[in-house]
């Protein structure tokens, strides 16, 4: 089985999010970048599925050269090889177009993305790639298993879950439950250095939308400390008007 895992390079979850002075760009200075946590889940599942088989895992990232440490980490976790589409990832549509273009020239059985990236939270790439390749896609996948070429998938729905089945190839946006993220070991880190990381030029994509400005949430007011639950209920009723 050939698996393509899409990796996004995102600010560490503890990062404070700030912007440049005219609020048009995210301020990257001092920010640590990591593999998007949901993509780590996708990658971990791909490793489980290919372990002890002749299957392979290609990781793909759309990004400039600064994302290479993130890609190397994915190789250290267990990917077979990597591709970097050499362009700044303008938006999900741009990223999905690059991935779909690359995938259309290969034959992957399974394409995995995280359910969303923790920077732009679009939950878009899995479904966009599915549509662009004209194959099924399932978003917010909690679990999946493959037998022969039949795949059974559990996806999250409001207040429950839905079980689906289809034939490979398919694109899945994975969430927690699919697998536990893997930490690279020394051998993985050493072997990652010699694995292939191919750099591919980007294809042209029309601009459909863009971000014109960013804002930070307004600071919240001072907390009102209360001693008695009755007083709290009273405040929630009379002041906050939520009871």
């Amino acid at each position, binding site marked *: 089985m050939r698996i393509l895992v899409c990796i996004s390079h995102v600010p560490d979850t503890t990062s404070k999010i700030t912007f440049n002075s005219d609020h048009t760009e995210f301020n990257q200075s001092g920010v640590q970048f990591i593999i998007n946590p949901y993509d780590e889940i996708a990658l971990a599942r791909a490793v489980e599925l290919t372990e002890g088989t002749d299957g392979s895992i290609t990781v793909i990232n759309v990004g400039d050269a600064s994302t290479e440490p993130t890609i190397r980490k994915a190789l250290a976790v267990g990917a077979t090889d990597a591709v970097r589409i050499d362009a700044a990832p303008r938006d999900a549509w741009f990223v999905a177009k690059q991935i779909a273009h690359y995938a259309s020239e290969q034959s992957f059985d399974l394409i995995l993305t995280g359910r969303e990236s923790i920077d732009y939270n679009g939950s*878009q790439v*899995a479904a966009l790639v599915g549509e662009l390749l004209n194959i099924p896609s399932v978003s917010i996948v909690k679990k999946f298993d493959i037998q022969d070429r039949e795949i059974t998938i559990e996806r999250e729905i409001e*207040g429950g879950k839905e079980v689906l089945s289809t034939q490979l190839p398919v694109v899945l946006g994975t969430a927690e439950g699919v697998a536990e993220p893997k930490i690279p070991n020394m051998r993985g880190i050493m072997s990652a250095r010699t694995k292939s990381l191919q750099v591919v030029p980007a294809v042209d994509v029309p601009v*459909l939308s863009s971000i014109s400005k960013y804002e930070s949430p307004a600071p919240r007011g001072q907390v009102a400390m209360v001693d008695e639950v009755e007083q709290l209920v009273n405040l929630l009723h009379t002041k906050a008007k939520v009871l």
Partner: protein
Amino acid sequence: MAILVYVENIEGKFKKSAFEVVSYAKAIAQEQSTSVTALSIGNVADEELNKLAAFGASKIVKVDQEQLKQFINKAYAAVIAEAASKEQAHIIVLSNSFSGKGLAPRLAAKLEAGLADGAMELPTFSGNDLQVKKTAFSNKAFATEVITADKKVIAVNPNSHEPVRSEETPVIETLSPSVDAGDLNLVVKDIVRATDKISLPEAEIVVSAGRGMKGPENWAMIEELAEVLGAATACSKPVSDAGWRPHSEHVGQTGIVVSPNLYIAIGISGAIQHLAGVSSSKTIVVINKDPEAPFFKVADYGIVGDALEIVPKLTAAIQAHKAN
């Protein structure tokens, strides 16, 4: 040139988000001097369909075909695209629900439309461009997305737009799209839904608890509090990682993002990743035995003390309040 809005139902009953998105579309239609056409897919009775008119849908298009009974994003995207072309709709509105997240991008790609996901306010227009404020960086920031493409898809966050009544006299039409067999090669085998539970993303009140609860055996008091409040239950990440609660309840940066009217955080420290997913809640109450817990910095009301003692008292106090 109507505004097309896709509405979701659960077993023939519209979700709350259906009324939110119709009402959202109506506000755009008023600004654009046009009307709202609502599209419903699945087996929904006319009586239920008519409810959409009260929130501004003047035309309701129903698609009720056996093959489309279950949600399949590929096929549904094709049907919505067909309806959009029939209605000559350039703006399509849907909910950024779990299904919407799998549907909106497919629809946008099909139409080569610009997509604003996670919209939290009404859009504004300048010429042919549409601008809308959306969440970004897991709620640590907001971004204004400008859609310059001719066709525009807006996926509206649940709970971000109050339904506003706007009575219309509805016309119901049936659409019978020809569905491509290739769009149906995904089979829904089973749906398991806890019908007695309030859905977390849509809940107006959320009772959430963390590692401070010590163990799963103490969750009964959380459920009781949620029950008297008519609230959904949630938890922090270590709680679901430990298997005390299901992953579907975990809120935060890497969990579900919620923005209820009231969020009650019990025995949760308030780590930055947790706050990211809950900070847009309108009112936040924190119960924690540590007066230095970071959560107090973003709370509206706080109580310092042992959750295991306070929660049952709070449940009783709310019961007493409701009985009055």
